[in-house]
């Protein structure tokens, strides 16, 4: 149980400004209280549909966005985490809590401290075309993190860059080229090289295989698995492609309108999803087998807007089995046994 990264009630709200004086009229609650734990060396999958907040969560997690509230605890020893949780529950304002936050909570870190952390946390984007600066040579793109973090100078940078490029399946010959000279799959490898060159501990993979072909997808997934093992990496694999997530992640979290609705071991959750949304989600994946029986749950209605999510359980307007309590009270994410967490009033045993 070696937790590398933990978020407690992480929230990210975007203000909507209106009127002549640009006052805040409403908020987009993109991430609304997400508490997840990422164990060292594991790959945690995060699935949900567009607009559910998974990309926002990933980016807030590594402080590319400024969180509105909550904690991000990176590499914090378990006793400290426990203490923080207790203090938060009892007295949110104690000076001890403040001190601990200053030391461990990424949401309080200033620019300098964050820069230090950035070496350890990285991200690979979905679109390899827009995530690489079109005017930079490959050697500069992959070498920039080393330069900025002060990890190498001069000749050493070049050597490390070549080493990294070779690890992702490219070579020295690509150093003096521009991104547009490469195919989509190769550009994604360059993006991976850039993210991994500082030897990070944690990498957010934001739909890294969505923009590439099926055959290239397998190559990239193999790369992630191999490099992950070799470099001892922890991944947060964000995707809306459930078939990919099923194969690469050990645990899986399902997100809906800014909140986690179910979290469990991947195999368990695919075999036996419990939350009505998860059930509908998994049933809609097209299976590449023409003879497979399809019991599709078609969800009625549309995904609610994160500006004004429904009262109570956010899923209740679309849920076939919604009860009275679902309209009033928001269900908590509870462990119903075997480390299977669900947020649903129907399942409370």
């Amino acid at each position, binding site marked *: 149980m070696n937790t590398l990264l933990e978020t407690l009630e992480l929230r990210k709200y975007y203000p909507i400004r209106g009127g002549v004086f*640009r006052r805040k009229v409403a908020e987009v609650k993109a991430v609304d209280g997400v508490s997840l734990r990422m164990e060292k060396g594991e790959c945690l999958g995060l699935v949900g549909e567009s607009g559910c907040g998974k990309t926002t969560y990933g*980016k807030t997690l*590594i402080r590319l966005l400024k969180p509105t509230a909550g904690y991000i605890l990176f590499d914090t020893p378990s006793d400290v985490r426990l203490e923080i949780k207790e203090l938060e529950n009892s007295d949110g304002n104690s000076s001890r809590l403040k001190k601990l936050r200053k030391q461990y909570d990424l949401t309080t870190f200033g620019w300098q401290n964050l820069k230090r952390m*950035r070496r350890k946390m990285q991200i690979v984007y979905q*679109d390899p075309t827009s*995530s690489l600066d079109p005017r930079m040579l490959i050697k500069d793109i992959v070498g920039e993190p080393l330069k900025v973090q002060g990890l190498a100078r001069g000749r050493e940078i070049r050597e490390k860059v070549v080493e990294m490029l070779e690890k992702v399946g490219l070579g020295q010959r690509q150093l003096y080229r*521009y991104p*547009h000279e490469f195919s989509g799959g190769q550009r994604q490898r360059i993006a991976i090289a850039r993210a991994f060159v500082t030897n990070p501990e944690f990498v957010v993979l934001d739909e890294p295989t969505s923009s590439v072909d099926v055959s290239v997808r397998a190559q990239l997934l193999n790369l992630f698995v191999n490099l992950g093992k070799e470099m001892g990496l922890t991944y947060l694999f964000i995707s809306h492609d459930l078939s990919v997530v099923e194969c690469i992640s050990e645990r899986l979290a399902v997100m809906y309108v800014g909140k986690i609705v179910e979290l469990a071991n991947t195999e368990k959750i695919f075999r036996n999803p419990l939350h009505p949304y998860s059930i509908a989600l998994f049933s809609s994946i097209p299976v590449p087998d023409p003879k497979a029986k399809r019991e599709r749950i078609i969800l009625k209605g549309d995904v609610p807007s994160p500006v004004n999510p429904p009262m109570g359980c956010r899923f209740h307007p679309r849920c076939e089995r919604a009860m009275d309590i679902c309209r009033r009270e928001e269900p908590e994410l509870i462990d119903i046994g075997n480390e299977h967490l669900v947020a649903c009033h129907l399942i409370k045993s």
Partner: protein
Amino acid sequence: MLREVKFSISRIMKSPLSIVGIAIVVFFAAVAILAPVLAPPRPNKDPFIMPRPKWDWSFTPRPPSPSNPFGTIEGQYDLFYGCIWGTISAFRIGFMVIIPVLIIALILGSVAAYYGGIIDELMMRFTDIIFAFPTLVLAIALVSVLGPSLDNVMLALILVGWPGYARVIRGEILRVKQEDYVEAAKAVGCSDLRIIIRHILPNAIYSTVIMASLDIGAIVLSAAALSFLGLGAPAGYADWGQIIARARHWIYGNPADPFAFWHAFIIPGLFIFTFVLGWNLLGDAFRDILDPTLRRR
């Protein structure tokens, strides 16, 4: 990288107009550099004042002759000298207007784009106000206040010229700011300054460079127009606009021969025309070769 350079050159070679544009600009640059050789200035005198014989200041221009290869204009100034040194003037006007304009626009546009919010609003409204002024009218007003001289003309053009660029730069920076690679640079730990200099600006200024090279021609034309109106260079100054101004009375020639004084305005006119054309074509060529991503690969 070499491949890119080769590709650029091949692109230029493919488009005959680009080659023409480059050739023209190079030609004029050569003329400007070799001006002291082609038309030696008189010692101890301002090289930009065209020479004329001390004994003969007659009004009527004289057609080309061995002593004056292009002829003379009103007041017996040597046209050849005027055109050659006018090239330097043209370059001077062009660059001394466009560079300050770019600097002002860069600063204002970047600040507006970077800070956003109310600063952006205020700056853009200010830009709009300046934009609304017709260039020539403002230039005339300024020059009438400050007095006619080429420097004042350049100042006027700078003061009215920057809004368009500021807008473009702001727009480009806003566009680039939200690209993934800028965020990725932040994820790597780049400071804001580094991001602006290394990532945002190189991607944002290319369209500005293209605009600028197309604009140099327009600037020279505006300056020439102002000189023509008498607001720019003083009489006898080696500036194409000024020279054409002095041909105002001679466009109709005399009753016997309507084209008697063609040289007085056609030759300097040709210089202006070709100069502006060259820069326009060059601007188009820039557009084709500068952007590695816009090219059809």
